[in-house]
């Protein structure tokens, strides 16, 4: 087995690449000199470098979408069938059999659960797609340089197309059930962004951990399943007892995402203080994910 030595004790993973601008001594150059050195110190985001690789980000997103739809016989139709069939099953099971209602949202259960399914599916497909994205692109990691962040980020972004198609289905559903959105729908892009932020945050953790620990492939489906039941997709948040439990429940970033999403579309249950707990968790997960990913990315090529 071949593993990488970092630092002197083999456990110091803090590595980074220094991209420094130096003014040439003898002549003026357009491109700053690239200095390649052993990693040390703290990981940095290197946002400028990410910007330089925006086209690769675009192409990888485009590739992910192309592949997803090319390999399936029914192609894009899956993006419609998946949420619709799930909605029908949830409505029959949770609403008709178990008697769960949409609570104070005051809309048919089908619409209620569909508005939860959309951001949930975005999150869940991101986790399974982006979580395995680094290992799935091992040949890229070992043969070409680019900021590794591009891989999970493009995998997350490519789930947005499914989301938009599902959104069109929701529009039809709302017209059918005569549910009219209110002015709060203007806030919708913000909550879509929050869903993407949450999905990216968790995906960064999972994809980096997957490179180091192959167990993650078994953990992801399990995690998605558990997380689903802990998120208000099939039941309204009002079913959670107020007080301490409610605060704990809102530590789940997806609680805020789904709650905000429903408010934007249905105009009920405006985000309260607990929403901000949830939104802060989303940002914390992303910040932690970025930090961990940047710390570990230097050894991806050596261990993948």
């Amino acid at each position, binding site marked *: *087995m071949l593993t990488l030595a970092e630092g002197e004790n083999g456990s110091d993973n803090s590595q980074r690449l220094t991209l420094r601008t130096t003014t040439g001594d003898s002549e003026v150059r357009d491109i700053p000199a*690239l200095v390649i050195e052993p990693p040390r110190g703290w990981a940095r985001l290197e946002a400028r470098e990410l910007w330089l690789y925006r086209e690769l980000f675009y192409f990888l997103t485009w590739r992910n979408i192309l592949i997803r739809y090319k390999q399936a016989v029914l192609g894009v139709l899956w993006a419609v069938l998946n949420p619709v069939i799930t909605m029908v099953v949830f409505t029959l099971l949770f609403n008709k059999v178990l008697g769960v209602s949409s609570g104070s949202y005051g809309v048919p259960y089908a619409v209620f659960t569909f508005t939860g399914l959309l951001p949930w599916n975005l999150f869940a497909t991101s986790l399974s797609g982006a979580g395995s994205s680094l290992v799935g692109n091992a040949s890229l990691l070992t043969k070409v*340089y680019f900021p590794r962040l591009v891989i999970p980020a493009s995998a997350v972004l490519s789930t947005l197309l499914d989301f938009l198609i599902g959104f069109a289905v929701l529009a039809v559903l709302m017209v059918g059930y005569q549910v009219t959105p209110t002015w709060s729908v203007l806030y919708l892009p913000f909550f879509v962004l929050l869903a993407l932020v949450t999905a990216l945050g968790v995906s960064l953790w999972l994809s980096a951990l997957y490179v180091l620990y192959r167990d993650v492939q078994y953990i992801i489906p399990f995690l998605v399943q558990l997380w689903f039941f802990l998120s208000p997709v099939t039941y309204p948040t009002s079913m959670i007892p107020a007080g301490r439990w409610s605060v704990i429940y809102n530590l789940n970033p997806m609680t805020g995402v789904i709650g905000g999403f429903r408010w934007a579309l249905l105009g009920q249950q405006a985000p309260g203080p607990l929403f901000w707990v949830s939104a802060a968790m989303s940002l914390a997960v992303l910040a932690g994910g970025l930090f961990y990913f940047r710390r570990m990315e230097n050894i991806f090529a050596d261990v993948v």
Partner: protein
Amino acid sequence: MSVAIDISGLGKRYLIGAQRERAATLRDAVTNMATAPIRRLRHAGSSTGDVSELWALRDVSFDVDAGQVLGVIGRNGAGKSTLLKVLSRITKPTTGRATIHGRVGSLLEVGTGFHQELSGRENIYLNGAILGMTRKEIAAKFDAIVEFSEIAGFLDTPVKRYSTGMFVRLAFAVAAHLDPEILLVDEVLSVGDLAFQRKCLGQMEQIAGSGRTVLFVSHNMVAVRNLCTRVVELDKGRLVADGPSDEIVKAYISAQTAAGGTELHLQQPLGRPEELVVTGARVLDEQGRSEGPFHSSRPLFVEIDVEVARENEGYQVGFDLLSVDGLVLRSWHTDGPEGDWPPLRAGRATLRCEVPAGLLNEGRYAVAPRADVYRTYWLVNGDDAVWFEMLHDHSESPLSLGGSPGVVAPVFDWRAAETHAPQA
């Protein structure tokens, strides 16, 4: 002349057998955490335990001037690829520093990021972007890439329906149109059929002649000699020679021959461990001696050790016979009728091939093992070679004291076809 690449004290260390230090699964990580205090007590003083180090690169320093075409040579495991990986930022160095002035493009593999489900057209864009081209750049070069690849009729066909040859041509065509100021190239020319290889080499010559800085890693000594003005040689991670390409290549080949080089010891087997690997190769005389020099009046035996993990009817194992200039005299596989082919069953096997007496001239030759899955892909393709020395002693002509130029020396029959006495 300004410096394009400045490398000083560059080193890259890997740890071997470090499973305990770096957990491979979460379970190990958890176990590690739990047992760490106990281990620390036991191994008090020796922090490394049974972990051994491998310096893939060690204290390498040299400069490359802008516009210079530099060849990097060395045996397998000498650190050539690690050097390119560090310079192209795929992996981090452990020590030292490299400073690069200019836009870098690296080509460590042909077809990186190609996707089987996508069409040729889509793959050109995708692969171009992965290699660092902008969308505008790819669009501008699109027609040239298609023309170079000779696959114009199949642009909208998914790549999975391409033959291996077509795939490789398209992949190389994209790579060949990469246009950076500094180009780092690993052994990528050994792809495709011979005609296409020549075309690629031509393209490389053009790039090399266009004033760009090129770092070229290769086993192909002819290519290195033709393309490069200067060559550095690596051995066990260290820089051991640096100078004009003719001189270094010649010395390298001599050293390979002299150092009992008729036995190929491989640190890492060549090929794909899950299918078939070549673990060694040697050249022997009739008595089974591998020292050489060999006499052209006696037959030679080439032995290739293989290890088969998964059986496949399509395996072909053979070798290239090369001259000192790197010219391939012939690439041999089992030539006989199908029933006579040596079986390649799972396990180890040594294939033995007799090279008849009276074939080679005096001089240095190399045997480079190769293996492939018939018409599908290469497993081993000229990745390493055994060098040996021949003495010419099979001619019965009293005039033949050696020294006739050429690489082959079969005895030809000479007789007068017609004689005319001078007419009176």
